[in-house]
């Protein structure tokens, strides 16, 4: 009878004789060997399927005394007896036990009970938690709790006279002879201003004073000036972008070239290596004539062969290393050149910026001009605070064809939310952060389960 069995193990319960230790009372009871019982039960089942328990049957059912031969059989059977296929045999087997009916029956029939006709009430679970609540709880457990600060109406003056407070404390201390607890003093560093991201290092205003060009209905001169300056900025940015592209291209080209060169060098090295090798074999052609007279060299021992092998390998390694070193040097040279180019560019930019700044600034009222500086004019310091860059400012400019002199038709520009956030970063109140939506998702690894193959046919 074919039985499915797992590949590993014998598919049977652990047995007592396989249990090495019998320490303790429980261990004695554990894994009692029941193979005999199970075997018996299996046999019983098989017997029932095949038509009843043999032991319970009468001998007449089991045995018959055959007194004369059956002549018909020879007629029925063909000349050449053909054994049926094993598969057919298996399929032809039928159990003596009738199959369980799959028909659905009414509940009363199955339970055999008569109900009173009233549906049983569902018990409400008092501790039931909805799925929505559960997800919220999970979030809370992950630290995403909603605000816990209670914002209530102010009911007292936070800046009431400090003298009075002191008096109160004095009065209290008259009746209180416990030692006073010293309050922690705030360090001086706490009062220091945050690091401003402006190149000048000066503190920037929270709300910069708007200039005339930000008006919804600007004066022509203001607007055209602003427009031109924005235009120039955009052009400069585009030029920079193109230059960057060009630089990248040059770099890639140089790298490809050096790679090709290195490869060629390697090839050459390989060739010469073969030539060198011949010397080690002792098969030099020019010495052939002499050597014929000479005694043939002794047969190399295994040790000698190994030594030669080792030496060759070492040589190969050294050659390879030299090639790699050369390659690296070339790459480094490319980098160096790129760096030099970059430096020169930077210097040029710096000079340009300085000139522009000088042109913009008035000599007399230096502080005034700084105060009036808008957010987008602020030159940023080179070193950023934290991991991420300060986000770019939106271009707040109404294009000339959208310029309207009616408040109703005004299309507001810029995003105040971004603006406020950027201002906070600019004043160094917080360091820049970036939203990373895929940060916390666990990495999934896909594997195939092998259980579907985990059996043998017996």
């Amino acid at each position, binding site marked *: 009878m074919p039985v499915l069995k797992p590949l590993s193990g014998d598919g049977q319960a652990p047995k007592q004789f396989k249990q090495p230790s019998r320490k303790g009372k429980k261990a004695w009871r554990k894994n009692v060997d029941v193979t005999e019982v199970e075997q018996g039960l299996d046999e019983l089942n098989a017997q029932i399927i095949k038509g009843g328990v043999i032991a319970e049957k009468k001998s007449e059912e089991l045995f018959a005394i055959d007194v004369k031969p059956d002549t018909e059989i020879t007629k029925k059977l063909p000349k050449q007896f053909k054994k049926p296929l094993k598969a057919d045999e298996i399929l032809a087997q039928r159990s003596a036990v009738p199959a369980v009916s799959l028909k659905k029956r009414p509940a009363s029939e199955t339970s055999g009970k008569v109900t009173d006709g009233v549906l049983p009430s569902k018990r409400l679970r008092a501790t039931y938690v909805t799925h929505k609540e559960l997800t919220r709880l999970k979030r809370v457990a992950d630290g995403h709790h909603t605000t816990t600060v209670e914002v209530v109406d102010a009911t007292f003056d936070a800046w009431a006279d400090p003298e009075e407070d002191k008096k109160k404390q004095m009065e209290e201390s008259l009746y209180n002879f416990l030692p006073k607890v010293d309050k922690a003093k705030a360090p001086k*560093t706490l009062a220091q201003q945050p690091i401003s991201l402006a190149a000048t290092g000066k503190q920037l205003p929270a709300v910069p004073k708007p200039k005339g060009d930000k008006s919804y209905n600007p004066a022509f001169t203001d607007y055209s000036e602003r427009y031109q300056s924005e235009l120039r900025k955009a052009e400069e940015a585009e030029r920079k972008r193109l230059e960057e592209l060009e630089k990248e291209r040059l770099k890639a080209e140089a790298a490809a070239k050096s790679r090709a060169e290195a490869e060629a060098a390697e090839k050459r090295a390989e060739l010469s290596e073969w030539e060198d090798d011949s010397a080690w074999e002792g098969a030099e052609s020019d010495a052939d004539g002499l050597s014929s007279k000479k005694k043939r060299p002794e047969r190399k021992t295994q040790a000698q062969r190994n030594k030669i092998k080792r030496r060759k390998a070492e040589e190969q390694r050294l050659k390879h290393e030299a090639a790699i070193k050369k390659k690296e040097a070339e790459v480094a040279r490319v980098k160096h050149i790129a760096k030099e180019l970059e430096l020169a560019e930077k210097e040029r930019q710096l000079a340009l910026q300085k000139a522009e700044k000088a042109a913009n600034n008035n000599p007399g009222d230096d502080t005034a001009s700084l105060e009036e500086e808008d957010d987008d004019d602020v030159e940023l310091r080179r070193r950023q605070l934290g991991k991420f860059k300060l986000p770019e400012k939106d271009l707040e400019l109404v294009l000339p064809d959208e310029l309207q002199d009616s408040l109703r038709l005004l299309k507001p520009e810029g995003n105040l939310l971004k603006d406020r956030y950027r201002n906070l970063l600019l004043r160094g109140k917080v360091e820049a952060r970036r939203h990373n939506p895929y940060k916390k998702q666990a990495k999934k690894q896909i594997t195939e389960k092998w259980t579907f193959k985990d059996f043998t046919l017996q």
Partner: protein
Amino acid sequence: MPKIKKKGQAGAAKNYITRTQAVKKLQLSLPDFRKLCIWKGIYPREPRNKKKVSKSVTASTTFYYTKDIQYLLHEPLLQKFRDQKVLEKKISRALGRGDVSDAARFERHAARPEATGKPRYTLNHVIRERYPTFNDALRDLDDCLSMLFLFANLPSTSAVPAKMIARCERLCLEFQHYLIVSHSLRKSFLSIKGIYYQANIQGEDILWLVPYKFNQRIVGDVDFRIMGTFVEFYMTLLGFVNYRLYSSIGLKYPPKFDQLKDENGAELGAFSLEGVNMATQGETQAVANGEEQQVDPKVQAEVDKIIKQLKEDESKSDETAEEDAEADDEEKPTDSIDKFEPVAPGGDVLPQPAYSGTDPSQLFANFTFYLSRETPRQPLEFILRAFGCKRIGWDSVLGEGAFTNDESDPSITHHVIDRPVVQAATSEEGDGEDNQTAQKVGPNQRYPGRIYVQPQWVWDCVNDEELKSPELYAPGAALPPHLSPFVKAAPGQYDPTLPLEAQQTEAEAIEADLEDAKEGAEEGSDIENDMDVDEAEDDEEEEEEDDAEADAEEDEEGDVEEDEEESKTLQRQLELEAELQGKKVQNKKVDPKTKSKLEHRKALEKKAKEEAEDLERAKGMLSKKKRKLFEQMQYTNNKKSAQDEKLRAKRRKLEKEKAQKA
């Protein structure tokens, strides 16, 4: 031999601490640490040499002062954060076990302070710590107001709960009420981003930006957790500031808030202010629209009493302030200006100085406004009220709380409108004065006896502290540019709004006068010689004169001292000029006035030259780098001033032409 110092025991290694170290020290999660830092005003710092702090730091490591973090250890809020952390752990453990109901119970109990006896925390104590004096708080109000007004105008999302938005809105409206009552709004500016307001509270200038309605989109690259933390702090701050401001003018805080009215969009009208010491007797609606019409004599009496009391308080506080000033020898900035008092009793009554002829805070006091439905109601209502207007009506679409919703109300004096003029209607109907009796007024038709203006009029009036001529702002008219009130014109810069006399330099004025005189003289001579003078010819002459003058100036630069020779050369020049043009020599006709002016000019030039020399000498002292920079600056400045001069000259010419025509 000096004592050998161990590494990492002093200096940068000791003074700074990285963020990770700080978080570990405080036993907090990073988001909680961020929150705490924002509330307590602890900012990231930068050591001079990062590698000296620790060798393992990278370019992106954030540092804090160790002392700041040490100080944070004493913070009572820290315990709250830790409690929260414990709760989180409990919940996550329960969830891990599958005891969902247990987790829910933990959470429920923690969120219910009345059940657990553990109160939720407030930021009250932080306010006093961060802002030791009220003026410190006022100085930081720019950011606070901008942020809260912005959040009050955001749509509610999961990141920005509706509760927070409502709270922000309420605080902002309360603050606006204070500004209205105290008349401390100074300027406002319509920009493309939003509306800027500037107020002066106790001598501090406060500037904030309010977005236009329904304009804010929420973008992904803004960290709402951080913004929310700031807003939480600022809400507490503005609450206390409002309390202080309200109590400083004798009002009760918080003011009464009518939920129903607010739901109907009354905004400012949903609040009713009450005096502090008559809370039991009755209440005044300080901002009730059209208050004057239904004045209750009783209430009026109460109001008078309060005002009197307030005045007494003020005078008292003034006295105390004076005493303080005497004691400390320092001046406190006050809004009031000096009073002139006679020294001896029974002296003359001295005229008192005032800000101007009319009080700017009462600019719109006598008007009744009506806002058309396409105008922005909230800013207009706020500004008009802040500048003394008592009665503002608007279309019922714009919400509740209007003085009147009836457009045809006869008491309306000003109508703010922002509609284009419809061409067809005018041609059809003519002027609207014919159908006064008609119920509805068609397009382009106006109620008589009422001034129609575009919204910009209100802003320009406020900024210039005077009533602008409404014709310029009539509906359909091309509006004058809306200039920023925050930009102070640089000296010598051309300003189209000022008259020429107020902005031209001395040299320019003299030049212009001389030119005038010359022209007059020439004209006289021309009339003598020839009666018909072409303007074109005149222009040519002017140009030639200009050239000649320029030449003369160049000559003058050469020799400085010999004035007499100079005058001689000048005269010769004039003679040559006259010869060229075929005229008589006019030098005899030069009247003494012109002569004095000529001399004055010469003096001015001399002075300028001396100054230039001084500058040159000073420049010699500078380093080469700085000198280059300075020269560049000078170059651009000269360019700019030349441009301004040109613009002024153009205007002068235009004005002259206008005068001649008139």
